[in-house]
């Protein structure tokens, strides 16, 4: 009854086609079929946000989507942020501000920050903290992440003044 279904998605700018069992979670497709292990599995209940990706430009829990159900979508993962030589400014600020410890939740926080700063170029602390509810960090106590996001916003505004 669970015949495989054809799926076509764009992942980090590259078109991918696959035939998948309908129940295959997007996170497993990304991690184990495409080797994009930056999205992590922390709860498979949609709470922790370690599996966060950008789905058509918006943060989404890749553990709460079946790969077949996002057919036609554009997906962006943490692997797409940096280039070979340089970190993305958001990543660089996480580094500068010591906004990661074990790093397991970090890819999710980075993508949440990408979404926040695309929606709001100059968020205040309350807006940053509200947005970061998307993800759980058990190591840092959040304060350094909040700082990193605020600094990344400054840096991104500096780079592309409006």
């Amino acid at each position: 009854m669970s015949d495989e279904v054809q799926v076509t998605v764009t992942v980090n700018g590259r078109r991918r086609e696959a035939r998948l069992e309908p129940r295959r979670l997007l996170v497993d497709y990304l991690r184990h079929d495409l080797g994009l292990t930056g999205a992590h599995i922390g709860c498979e209940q949609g709470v922790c946000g370690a599996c966060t990706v950008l789905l058509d430009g918006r943060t989404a829990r890749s553990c709460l989507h079946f790969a077949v159900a996002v057919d036609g979508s554009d997906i962006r993962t943490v692997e797409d942020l940096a280039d070979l030589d340089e970190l993305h400014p958001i990543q660089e600020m996480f580094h500068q501000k010591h906004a990661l410890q074990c790093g397991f939740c970090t890819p999710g926080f980075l993508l949440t920050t990408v979404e926040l700063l695309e929606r709001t170029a100059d968020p205040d602390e309350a807006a940053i903290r509200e947005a970061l509810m998307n993800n759980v960090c058990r190591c840092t106590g959040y304060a350094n992440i909040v700082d990193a996001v605020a600094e990344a916003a400054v840096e991104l505004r500096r780079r592309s003044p409006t």
Partner: protein
Amino acid sequence: MKPAPFSFVAPESLDEVVSALAEHGDDARILAGGQSLVPLMNLRLARPEVLVSINRCHELDYIRRADDRLVVGALVRQIDAETSPLVRAECPLLAAALPHVGLPATRNRGTVCGSLAHCDPLAELPAVALALEAELVLTSAAGERRVPAHDFFVTDMTTCIEPGEVVSAVAFSRQDPSERSALHEVSNGGHAFPVGGVALRWASADGVCTMARIAAFGVGSVAQRLVDAENALVGSDLGSEAIAAAVAAARAAVNPTGDIHADADYRRHLVGVLLERGLLEGEAP
């Protein structure tokens, strides 16, 4: 935690959706945003044999005025409703409620109708639907029926949706520009579901309350309209005596149960606290 096998169809029109539902009957579940359903499937607490995705039915992705109603289609994501100028203008209570729903990433995918159909007693939107006297549009191969919110929500995770039916839209009452509205809730932590909350809207003219609609969530097996509390306000000056009467009526009307997150007495108390807070702090038009 991996879901059990199922088969998958993703029709491109509402007609095809209802025929797929007709074909599979009880075995089928609708997949909209999936933000409530997929966690249950990952835990294998839900195991539909067929998932009918409506994510390709772009005809269901609309928000529009229709007479005295604001109609939200089944594919409208919560984030799109939250940021919609139309929603803000016509249903400010809905706009105020949506930032409380789930988490940013789940609002990006979850739909307004999906939350209503899921009928979680802790969810905000069923209470909003009650306070906005919404009608749910249920479509099946047999046609369409419109069900008032107070008949739609039956009990914990149970609505009046029949096999073969899909919630194709929800039609909220458009709020009068003079109305005030508020949604307040309390949870045990940032990520937690609320342990109780109140959605309300009211209007007054010449210092007299002319209309009040109040609904509570998290304080019973399903969201609940608090008519006695409304009656305590309408005709009053919304002063402290009237508010106290409404608070007392609200507390008397609810029948909460205790669980690991909060005891029943607290939830009863909380309804009053939040109602009072809403009336005192509710956003002006």
